[in-house]
């Protein structure tokens, strides 16, 4: 039998930074020595359509798409998309919507919500903090890097 993969599904709408969020996750998995795949499903995302991004990592990954009912973690950036997508989760899967709900209190103007949610996710995965931070650095260019690292840690700390 092949070894299991870890499957994560990010969902939301165009312009929310879903692709950056999933990229951080996929890079962190790659830096940790895993075969990592990331793929997105969207129609005209820049114009406000729905966006999904799938990340799968493990020793070897075949399909880039996750399977319905096969997702370990759902990371929603939008409440209504979260409802729609929750059926993609495994029975034992985890919807991180609770962190979306408290993000309003923790983030100024909702800035960097995507990075915040990745921070929360990071606590659930067995990838090292060092690789996560390295991944955030790779994905964000200089401009908002420090702010994003800070928000990432906020998300991480939101998980008790």
């Amino acid at each position, binding site marked *: 039998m092949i070894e299991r993969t870890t499957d994560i599904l990010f969902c939301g709408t165009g312009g929310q930074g879903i692709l950056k969020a999933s990229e951080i996750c996929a890079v962190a998995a*790659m830096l940790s020595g895993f*075969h990592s795949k990331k793929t997105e499903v969207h129609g005209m995302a820049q*114009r*406000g359509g729905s966006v999904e991004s799938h990340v799968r990592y493990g020793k070897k990954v075949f399909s*880039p798409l996750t399977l*319905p009912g096969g997702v370990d973690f759902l990371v929603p950036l939008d409440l209504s998309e979260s409802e*729609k997508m929750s059926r993609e989760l495994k029975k034992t899967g985890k919807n991180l919507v609770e962190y979306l709900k408290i993000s309003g209190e923790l983030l100024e103007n909702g800035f960097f919500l995507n990075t915040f949610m990745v921070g929360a996710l990071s606590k659930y995965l067995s990838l090292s903090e060092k690789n996560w931070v390295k991944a955030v650095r790779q994905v964000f260019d200089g401009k908002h890097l420090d702010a994003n690292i800070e928000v990432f840690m906020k998300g991480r700390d939101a998980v008790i």
Partner: protein
Amino acid sequence: MKKSVPRISSLLSGDEALAQGAYEAGVKIAASYPGTPATEIMEYMAGFDEVDCQWSVNEKVAYEVAYSGAVAGVRTLFSAKHVGLNVAMDSIMTSAYTGINAGFVVVTCDEPGLHSSQNEQDNRLLARIAKLPLLEPSSPSEAKELVIKAFEISEKFDTPVILRLTTRIAHTKENVVLGKRREPQNKHYHPCFEKYVMVPKNAGARHIELEERLVRLKRYSEVSRLNSVEMGDRKTGFIAAGVSYLYAKEMYPNASFLKLGMSYPFPEEKIRDFVKKVRTVHVIEELEPFIEEQCKIAGIKIRTKDPSFRTGELRPEYIPLIVSGKKKNVPSKPSRKPVLCPGCSHRPLFWILNKLKLNVAGDIGCYTLGASAPLSALHTCLCMGSGDTILEGFTKVLGRNVVGVIGDSTFVHSGITGLINLAYNKTNAVLIILDNSTTGMTGSQPHPATGITIKGEKTKKLILEDVCKAAGADNVDVIDPFRIKDLEALIKKRIGEDKLSVIISRYPCRLVDRRKNAAPIFVQDKCKKCGLCLKIDCPSVMKQTDGYVSIDRTTCVGCNLCVDVCPFGAIIKND
């Protein structure tokens, strides 16, 4: 002595990995026109100083620039979205006859599921029509490997080689190991009347050569490791190419596989042999029954999908359905309607066209979003460059309450010929060029009328006004579409004249010029809840549960169109 190269892994998309592979193979010229999901190939390529790369005017031009570079002796690459090959098809067909000289790779990015396209044609069929070899990677890292192989095959057999990605490969990222660039020697070019001048006599002889080449390519396909067998459980086997292979492998990891990396010419004997060794063999493929038909022609017994699986994107969970011979029966997911961005300069124009109740011949670009309700002011979308040609047919039949709309990038791509045709064939009509000074739809690429190259350098700028006049337009007006009263008056005036008129509606795309004004202010006392401000379909003007509206300050860019359309002064400018 072998130098040890550090193995650097990067998370690359299929598009990026393909460009990286072509770079490593020593590509010197690369040409394309933007189109999802192929755009990022050339965007990534533009980062390499060693590669002379370009956004061409359209795909036909791109193809010929790349083709001729290869004939002249350097490795070249052409890339486009699936429908881009239609535009280049005339040159593709005959380039198969002439062959090339140095390696030439033709990349098509097909779009099963039409996430952002006008059709979902399967370009594997084009390889067969053009009689060109076809390679199909299944992942980004394979895209890198196979493009290097494609250059070798191209030179070995003196032929353009088609390399096909689909959206799911082009836009998937995975770990890809980066290598060093190899600088191949340029091939010597010498003029050859029989090979490069396709007059009937020469072309006839080259056609014979092409058929012989196909026989040699077929022999290669039979023995090549690109088509590989993985024996597992002998009860169930799969023949698949591209991402379909990965889906089958995901669902049936223990089965036997014949993975086709080179699916044309068809490795018939290899398949026959595989089928002999396995009890039941299924063909898994997205879209057209390409492998299926070739198996059937060869009399090879395989199980095939129900025809209902010939449309839409394949997904891993469909594989068991296909295996059990079931029909496709999947509920479509509700998804959000895309809309024009806040402050988009296309919005005021469609607002006026809607108000004037005109028939609008449309085209493809962000502005196609003007077709959906409540703007509903664009009534056709066929292919690029059809805004002004459909305008002509419509005008002939429907009379003068018709206008055509076309984007600036689309006009340069293939709309200019339509304007010349209107003039030449004495048609009086009004064409509106929606000039947001970028190729918006595909993510803001420059084009000739921006005066900027793919590498961000300044170049000669195409002046649209001059082109239109030279093509034969009697009037060419340039107007800022946010002056809606003037715009409305101008359109009415031009429709009333027996002239060929072009109106250039010019305002920069908000994703390129991100300057903002303050969001306007909603004055509740004056609002009569008439809903007119919602009819402009701006995401920043939001209806509240009490029937009033609010303006979303974070997304609003202060274009003030809602201020101008409110008849009661209930939304006021904030300056």
